[in-house]
């Protein structure tokens, strides 16, 4: 009988029985080894595609005692996945595990201890201490390095036992191991434990440990280097000589091919560089330029991590990279998120020397098709103009060119930045270059912020607008339909226009807008403001003119957003981590679990409270409006305000004392102007 036919027949007979699960079970208890192995593979395959095969637990477990290492691995894998569903049965596997940790084959010994640590069942922990102790003293470094990590796993499951049994001490001893990979894993494990429970104080770098780490650094694998470098960056060097010694040993790592090693090296150098003498400081700081640039020749994802870090580093050390503008040119194939981030760096690198080049490059981007990139390029041109007075006129000409060439959203974006430019450059030269363009293009504006910007310009320079009455008429007619941002701007503008350049009908428009704002508008701010103006104007118009027109707005020195000093310090210390990518300190997004652990001994209420707070914090962070916790100290609040203004697309992040507060109010020139006037009144 042919085998195909036989198979078909067999299927025929089997099909009506209990289906796949039954078939697997029969396979698992088959008397033939190859059938059992095949069945295990199929169980794992089913597990991989997400089927629940936990019911087969006892049958799979029967196959654990085998000399076939591949089969052993599969059974172990199954155990790790389903241990939780059958914690009682897991204990049956303990014997095999313990036996395996004494196997003559180091691969088996390591496999057994690695898997034991991954079976997250409380009972398993009780059987772990003896094999683990043996493993940590194994002759084979491969087994020792696996054991080192296993201590961290054990700590995660049962910290008390881990401490009581002296595993932390054993781990500390492994830092002095002759094998670099064991050292690296011991350091990883210690760092992990220290992070999850700082009170253990298990990872203290002493001068002896430091020596070991520096020695292992040159010997171990790339990942080991990352681990050791991160540990070194956390360490506080005691004096100049030691800082110099560390940096000297770390600098060669900056030429490693693995970008993670390079970034960890940069972080370490930065964390120790402040201790150096000024000549050494300069010398080593210079050495950071080229590895930083090298972060840009990797995959887009790694480049993005690199460039977000570069932004932090540049803010701390603005002199770095001043000649490397070209590296950050946008490439056609870059993903959008990278393009936008490159522009952030480009405006920060702008100086008088590279400005002409930079502006012509930005012009290219502004002529692209991607709307987000184009908008960002337009605002970047203005940022450069505001930063560099010598090139401002060129930039304004460029913006005017773009407005004429592109239309639609480019006009809206340009009008927004024109407002900023006028707050920086108040000479007639600029006013004459900008205002006519705004006056000619105002009708195409449809975005609220751009409209508000146009209205602010109108209020400041009404004389420069042709057919002023038409503008005012439009404002008065459309007042009710507008958003409150525009309404506030309109109130300002109409009052100022009436004082500055009253036309035949401007009084009427003023009256109708004030009427409208006080009686028909629901927004309290708009109404209050309208009332204020009304009273002021009706009591003494001379005084009103004095108050409203003679108060000069402070010029904005820069529209490039800066981190607050507290946030910057935080981010510099967290280079390379997720915090450096989000540009938020880690406590704003990591869960409170670590804190909860410390309090584990305390009452459960406390934990519940923490959990609730976590939920609230998470809800907040979803909205990006993360204020940290209510009781947080002032600094983080300031930093989250900073983020707030980021969210609102802040354009006037002037480093004034009150800039953060201004930022909170929407941060547009109109509004901040309004607030300072309100303060004057």
């Amino acid at each position, binding site marked *: 009988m042919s085998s195909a036919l036989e198979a078909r027949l067999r299927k025929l007979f089997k099909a009506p029985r209990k289906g796949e699960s039954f078939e697997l079970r029969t396979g698992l208890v088959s008397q033939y080894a190859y059938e059992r192995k095949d069945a295990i593979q199929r169980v794992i395959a089913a597990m*991989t595609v997400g089927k629940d095969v936990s019911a087969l637990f006892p049958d799979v477990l029967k196959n654990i005692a085998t000399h076939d290492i591949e089969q052993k691995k599969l059974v172990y894998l199954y155990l790790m996945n389903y241990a939780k569903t059958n914690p009682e049965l897991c204990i049956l596997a303990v014997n095999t595990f313990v036996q395996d940790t004494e196997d003559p084959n180091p691969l088996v010994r390591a496999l057994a201890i690695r898997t034991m640590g991954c079976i997250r069942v409380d009972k398993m922990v009780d059987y772990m201490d003896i094999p683990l102790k043996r493993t940590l003293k194994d002759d084979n470094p491969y087994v020792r390095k696996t054991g080192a990590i296993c201590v961290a796993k054990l700590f995660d499951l049962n910290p008390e036992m881990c401490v009581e049994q002296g595993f932390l001490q054993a781990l500390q001893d492994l830092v002095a191991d002759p094998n670099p990979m064991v050292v690296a*894993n011991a350091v990883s494990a210690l760092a992990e434990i220290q992070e999850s429970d700082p009170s253990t104080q298990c990872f203290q770098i002493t001068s002896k440990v430091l020596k070991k780490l520096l020695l292992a650094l040159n010997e171990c694998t790339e990942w080991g280097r990352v681990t050791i470098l991160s540990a070194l960056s956390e360490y506080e060097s005691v004096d100049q000589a030691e800082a110099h010694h560390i940096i000297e040993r770390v600098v060669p790592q900056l030429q490693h091919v693995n970008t993670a090693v390079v970034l960890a090296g940069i972080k370490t150098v930065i964390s120790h560089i402040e201790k150096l003498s000024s000549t050494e400081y300069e010398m080593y700081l210079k050495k950071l330029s080229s590895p930083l640039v090298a972060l840009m020749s990797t995959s887009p994802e790694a480049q993005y991590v690199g460039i977000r870090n570069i932004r932090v580093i540049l803010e701390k050390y603005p002199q770095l990279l001043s000649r490397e503008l070209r590296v950050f040119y946008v490439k056609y194939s870059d993903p959008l998120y990278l393009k936008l981030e490159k522009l952030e760096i480009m405006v920060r690198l702008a100086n008088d020397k590279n400005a002409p080049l930079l502006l012509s490059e930005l012009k290219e981007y502004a002529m692209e098709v991607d709307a987000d990139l184009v908008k960002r390029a337009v605002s970047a041109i203005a940022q450069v103009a505001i930063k560099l007075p010598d090139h401002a006129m060129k930039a304004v000409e460029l913006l005017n060119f773009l407005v004429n060439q592109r239309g639609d959203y480019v006009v809206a974006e340009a009008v927004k930045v024109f407002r900023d430019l006028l707050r920086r450059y108040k000479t007639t030269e600029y006013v004459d270059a900008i205002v006519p363009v705004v006056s000619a293009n105002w009708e195409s504006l449809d975005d609220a912020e751009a409209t508000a910007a146009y209205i602010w310009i109108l209020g400041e320079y009404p004389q420069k607008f042709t057919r002023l009455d038409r503008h005012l008429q439009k404002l008065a007619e459309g007042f009710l339909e507008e958003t409150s941002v525009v309404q506030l701007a309109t109130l300002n503008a109409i009052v100022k226009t009436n004082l500055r350049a009253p036309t035949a009908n401007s009084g009427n428009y003023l009256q109708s807008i004030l009427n409208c704002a006080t009686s028909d508008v629901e927004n309290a701010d708009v109404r209050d403001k309208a009332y204020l103006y009304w009273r002021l104007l009706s009591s003494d118009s001379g005084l009103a003119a004095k108050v409203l027109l003679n108060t000069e707005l402070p010029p904005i020195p820069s529209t490039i957003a800066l981190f607050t000093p507290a946030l910057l310090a935080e981010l510099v210390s967290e280079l390379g981590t997720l915090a450096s990518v989000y540009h938020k300190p880690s406590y704003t997004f990591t869960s409170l679990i670590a804190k909860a652990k410390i309090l584990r001994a305390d009452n459960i209420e406390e934990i519940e409270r923490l959990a609730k707070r976590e939920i609230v914090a998470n809800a907040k962070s979803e909205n990006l409006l993360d204020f940290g916790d209510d009781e947080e100290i002032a600094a983080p609040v300031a930093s989250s305000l900073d983020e707030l203004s980021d969210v609102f697309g802040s354009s006037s992040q002037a480093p004034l004392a009150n800039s953060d507060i201004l930022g909170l109010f929407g941060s547009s020139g109109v509004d901040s102007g309004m607030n300072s006037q309100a303060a004057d009144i």
Partner: protein
Amino acid sequence: MASSIHFLDVKGKPLLSRDYKGDIPSTMLDRFPLLLLENEEANMMQPFIHHQGVNFVYISHKNLYLLAMTKKNDNVMQIVIFLQKVIEVLTEYVKQLEEESIRDNFVVIYELLDEMMDFGCPQVTDSKILKEYITLDYYSLEKHKMLAPPAAVTNSVSWRQEGIFYKKNEAFLDVIESINMLVNSTGQVLHSEILGRVKIKSNLSGMPDLRLGLNDKGIFNEAGSSNAKGIELEDIKFHQCVRLSKFETDRIITFIPPDGEFDLMSYRLTMPLKPLIHVECKFKIHSNSRIEILARVRAQIKRKSTANNVEIMIPIPEDADTPKFKSDGGKIKWKPEESVLVWKFKSFQGGKEYVMKTELGLPSVNDEDVSAGEIFKKKPIKVNFLIPYFTTSGIQVKYLRINEPKLQYQSYPWVRYITENGPDYTIRMK
């Protein structure tokens, strides 16, 4: 330290997962497709998402997502590079890493994931060493190898096994320079850089110690002959086998190479360059009927040199059709699916110049949306080429000394130079 690694398909459906820490519930993974979609709608697409205390770090590879999840403020650069390494290693094992090959090879992928990461710490990611003890086909593996992990896993020379033997000991050294260049439509070079790498294929026995001499200024001056004309390499990056501290102090490149092929070092040079293959392109649109494209290409290299496989990709409007070509050299092809013209030369001698003219028909109905028809002008012209026996930077290998202290064999180093286009050799149309 990542909590878990997942392979997902293009829609975010999980294909294979390995949970290292068990501190993130699997329901979080189910949210990923939605988060991905939200990210896409927000048009941001950063490969990092934060959601309810869990951080999603992902990279995409062909039609796959490779995702790492973590709750902590982890070293994200390490995670990203590790994920790339996973793709690199798995590709070595299964050739094409895609949905089907993941399903077919889940056993070995689990094994590799176990070996490459433990409790979130990256461990061994060198495919040459991994292949020594993890394989697709256990029957082919010699029995003795299964008895212990290769010593190299934990040695300080973690990239080379002992006991390698070749009858003929040879080392092939390729110096390859890729040129990235951005030229605007008027022919002005906006940005140019050389990305160089030194590739070695080592067929050497035992544990050979190699020493490479280059005419790099920094290296050469230290060696004493200061009058030599050297060049200064920037951003030198070395394979992990190079003794970095030795290079830092003595500027000498010494190493014990891995067996087989590997990239020994890479460098970057930003120096003003003339475009090696220069393209000028003009086009004229006759409204509603046709477009005329005129291009001129010149090889600005030495007459003795020849560029091979020159390909010039000129973007054209998407809706163009019925092309008519005329040229005095090379072959022109129309690739409507990519909206480009490809002008090809098998070989292109230095100093030569060719011209071509192409006419394409345009639909007579004018597109309402003007910008759509104009998009092609924003795309840059791309150029591919390969110039053998030539480096743009002028870097030269002065010597490659091979010394195996125990075996003391005769060995033969071979050196080759190649200049080619980088991924961004582009000329803007307008």
